């Protein structure tokens, strides 16, 4: 007979001062529908800790002017803070140089920059671009636009029923016409972590550059662009405890230098006459017009905040959350998890038999629980897995095991209503 000591609390692999972390996030104290907010929509956008909010306030209160222009005190200060933030981002992803970090408005903007700056210059008629079934629409549509314009072709890496890329099929897609690979690091809908380092090495052996959409990876694991050896890496600030309207495109300097500018305007030029314009050097060549200075500085504070907690500690804690939530939901009759990859971040997409995701979302909101419902901007994934839509709970390091319990209790209430 097995002896079970019922006084033992569940043991988790990570050690993490969750109370201290939660105290940094004022929004987590909100009540929704008279219940404590349980925010499980982190894959859509994360919440902002007080140090980042404070940084934004300090910038607007004492440091704001336009950058790269004036010789006055505030302009010089704002420029220094903006460039200081670029160096924070450089350290955060371990880029070789700070000029390899371009501020964009977000992941979508970053991918569009690569499509225009690299794709339109180096991809032509009959060339092939490899993408994967798991891609977010933002890493599909720009390439479709390019393919249509240039007469290029898109080849798609299939997935298995668990939501994992079929790497053998990926390797078979390469031909001598393959000119570019775009792949997401972590699936927003399913949480699948893709073996991007191996995929990059395979592409590089064939001289094909690779763009990684890292929007769902950087908030949840240590990302080292030199170790991955990716050519481009795109991510957003607002999924990273930072502000909206800011994101980053990392690119290898020698590639960025060969690329054409994306947007034309001020700041991205060295000299302008009506006969000829000389473009500025990188990264400024890709930052036309006044950037979102406050947001860029806020993002610098956000990655400092995350680094102070430690991405490895965050990853370990979130894995505990995922395992606990997966275990709880697996016990519920009529609930099916969509996306069961061996390597996952803390994303739980699921179906409840007989209940439409929109009804689940509305009723969970009544319990204070915020989840995402719908197709998650990945209609090809939904089509492949034959689900019209799912409900998605996506966790962050400030969520608790008690919140998992509240979420599961909410789901039971939904099932009861629809019984």
């Amino acid at each position, binding site marked *: 007979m097995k002896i079970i000591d019922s006084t033992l609390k569940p043991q988790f692999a990570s050690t993490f001062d969750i109370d201290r972390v939660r105290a940094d996030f004022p929004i987590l104290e909100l009540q929704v529908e008279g219940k404590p907010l349980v925010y499980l929509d982190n894959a859509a956008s994360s919440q902002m800790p007080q140090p980042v909010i404070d940084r934004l306030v300090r910038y607007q209160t004492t440091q704001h002017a336009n950058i790269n222009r004036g010789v006055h005190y505030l302009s010089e200060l704002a420029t220094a803070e903006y460039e200081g933030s670029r160096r924070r981002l450089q350290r955060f992803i371990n880029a070789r140089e700070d000029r390899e970090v371009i501020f964009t408005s977000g992941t979508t903007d970053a991918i569009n920059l690569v499509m225009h700056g690299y794709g339109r210059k180096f991809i032509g008629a009959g060339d092939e671009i490899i993408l994967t079934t798991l891609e977010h629409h933002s890493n599909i549509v720009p390439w479709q636009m390019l393919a249509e314009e240039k007469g290029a072709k898109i080849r798609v890496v299939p997935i298995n029923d668990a939501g994992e890329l079929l790497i053998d099929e990926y390797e078979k897609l390469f031909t001598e016409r393959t000119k570019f690979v775009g792949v997401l690091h972590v699936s927003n809908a399913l949480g699948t972590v893709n073996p991007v380092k191996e995929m990059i090495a395979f592409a590089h052996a064939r001289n094909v550059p690779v763009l990684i959409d890292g929007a769902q990876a950087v908030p949840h694991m240590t990302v080292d662009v030199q170790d991955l050896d990716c050519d481009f890496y795109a991510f957003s600030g607002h999924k990273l405890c930072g502000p909206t309207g800011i994101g980053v495109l990392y690119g290898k300097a020698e590639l960025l230098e060969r690329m054409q500018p994306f947007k034309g305007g001020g700041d991205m030029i060295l000299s302008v006459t009506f006969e000829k314009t000389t473009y500025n050097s990188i990264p400024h060549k890709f930052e036309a017009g006044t950037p979102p200075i406050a947001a860029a500085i806020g993002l610098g504070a956000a990655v400092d905040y995350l680094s102070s907690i430690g991405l490895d500690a965050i990853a370990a804690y979130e894995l505990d959350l995922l395992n606990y939530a997966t275990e709880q939901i697996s016990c519920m009759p009529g609930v099916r998890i969509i996306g069961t990859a061996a390597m996952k971040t803390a994303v739980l997409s699921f179906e409840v038999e007989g209940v439409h995701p929109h009804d689940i979302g509305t*009723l969970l909101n009544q319990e204070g629980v915020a989840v995402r419902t719908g197709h998650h901007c990945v209609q090809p994934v939904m089509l492949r897995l034959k689900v019209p839509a799912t409900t998605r709970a996506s966790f962050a390091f400030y969520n608790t095991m008690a919140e998992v319990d509240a979420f599961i209790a909410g789901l039971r209430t939904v099932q009861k209503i629809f019984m």
Partner: protein
Amino acid sequence: MNTKSLYQEVILDHNKKPRNYGTLDKASHHAVGHNPLCGDHLDIALNLEGERIDGIAFHGESCAICKASASMMTTVVKGKTRADAETLIKEFRDMATGTLDLEGQHHLGRLTVFAGVRDLPTRVKCAILPWHTLHAALNAVTTISTESEDDPMHAPIGDA
């Protein structure tokens, strides 16, 4: 509002056992409504005898609010004239978007169980989709989308 009050017995019942669910053997009018935001779609067929809706049926994939709305709609408009149906479409839309005075004169009857959606902006489209699809069918538009410019949802109904 209390969201649970929207998920009342009558709505849950129509979701579970939708009335007039399926296809019509004889249909003079037909339309498909889409909500691309959630992937829901609804197929509505009806048969007009002169100006009177003689038969109506629907099928498709949708949430409980949408399916119950479609089911109750079919039971209410069956046997009514096209003009009466258009009046109900306009009144239902006004109720769902919060511009109808529920205390004033209207013909919605038990359809007022859907009044609560006006407090749930993201769910208004779910409740209205069947009614807009019916409007499209009556006006010989074969497909509509809640997100397209020519969706009747974006144009005043009844003035078309």
